[in-house]
């Protein structure tokens, strides 16, 4: 394997394992693992702990492979943004071929192991999720439309669906609702971030909503998605897929989400604005998803124990 880090005048230093690990976007992976695990724990039915571990491992490795392919494709863009310029490829610690091969190897291995060890429906959805993120989102839509985040949200929405299917082996309305929750959550989550890092995106020509449609329109759309998210998160309770433990949690968490989104949605930033409401919404949105999905798994536990 080659590396971009020069040693002497002709020999390149091999990339460190830590750089390969960084390609998998470990911070994003924690959310992927968590939501996948919650989908798996919330699903009706039984799964052997070893098979459950394999399913979560494959979801994580698949997400890591897709992230590596994303970083390989976007190395030039990453180099132009402060937030991403220290990643292994733009900083020159790794050569593009290594990143690409690593991404394909992780993606392929995760799908095959999922198919052989868990079930082939889960493997097929995992394969599609990798393709969705690495090609449909990264290559095709991200550079072309300001709706890129809405579509990209689909990629992050697959883990709980895959976790659920790993247990049941089939798709019902409940896992589709879990998919929709993350799908609807992503735009307000990411646009809140994009509002305070928009200069970076403008610099590299990515058509992020605040850059293309303007700040005012982005703020309105954040509010609209937050309002739509609330009934979507309550739907699992409404259709009887969960009990009150999840339902009440979703209601309280959702109302806070809406309240924070109203602050962001109805204001305009001034010169030298510290963007505190946007930063608060972004931070809360991460906590929101962790707690919401945690409550989903907790609700299942409460049902199994006969507490509700």
């Amino acid at each position, binding site marked *: *394997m*080659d590396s971009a880090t020069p*040693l*002497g*005048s*002709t*020999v*390149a*230093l*091999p*990339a*460190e*394992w830590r750089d*390969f690990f960084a390609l998998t976007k470990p911070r994003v992976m924690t959310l992927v693992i968590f939501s996948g695990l919650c989908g798996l724990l919330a699903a009706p039915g039984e799964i*052997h702990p*070893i*098979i459950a571990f*394999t399913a979560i*491992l494959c979801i994580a490795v698949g997400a890591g492979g897709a992230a590596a392919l994303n970083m390989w494709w976007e190395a030039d863009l990453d180099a132009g943004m402060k937030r991403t310029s220290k990643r292994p490829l733009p900083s020159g610690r790794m050569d593009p071929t290594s990143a690409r091969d690593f991404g394909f190897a992780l993606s392929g291995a995760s799908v095959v192991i999922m198919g*052989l*060890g868990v079930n082939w429906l889960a493997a097929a959805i995992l394969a599609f999720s990798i393709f969705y993120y690495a090609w449909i989102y990264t290559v095709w839509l991200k550079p072309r439309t300001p709706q890129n985040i809405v579509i990209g949200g689909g990629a992050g929405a697959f883990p709980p669906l895959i976790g659920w299917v790993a247990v049941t082996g089939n798709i019902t309305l409940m896992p589709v609702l879990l998919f929709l929750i993350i799908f609807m959550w992503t735009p307000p989550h990411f646009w809140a971030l994009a509002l305070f890092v928009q200069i970076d995106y403008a610099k590299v020509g990515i058509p992020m909503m605040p850059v293309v449609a303007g700040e005012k329109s982005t703020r309105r759309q954040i509010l609209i998605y937050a309002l739509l998210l609330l009934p979507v998160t309550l739907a699992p309770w409404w259709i009887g897929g969960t009990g009150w433990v999840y339902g009440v949690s979703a209601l309280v968490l959702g109302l806070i989400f809406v309240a924070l989104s109203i602050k962001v949605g109805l204001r305009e930033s001034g010169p030298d604005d510290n963007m505190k409401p946007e930063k608060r919404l972004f931070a809360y949105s991460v906590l929101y998803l962790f707690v919401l999905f945690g409550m989903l798994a907790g609700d299942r536990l409460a049902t199994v124990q006969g507490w509700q």
Partner: protein
Amino acid sequence: MMNDPKQHTHLGKEETALYRARQRSRNKALGIVLGSLAVLFFAISIVKIAAQVSH
């Protein structure tokens, strides 16, 4: 293809040592991954065989 530092006589002692250390670190990481996979495949096989037997 990985460059071999032996073929590049201009490399100093420290640079060669750094190169080798990086290679060792990567090999160790790869070894751990492959070993863990072998254990995982064994465990999956036992679970699947046990499930077949119980049916």
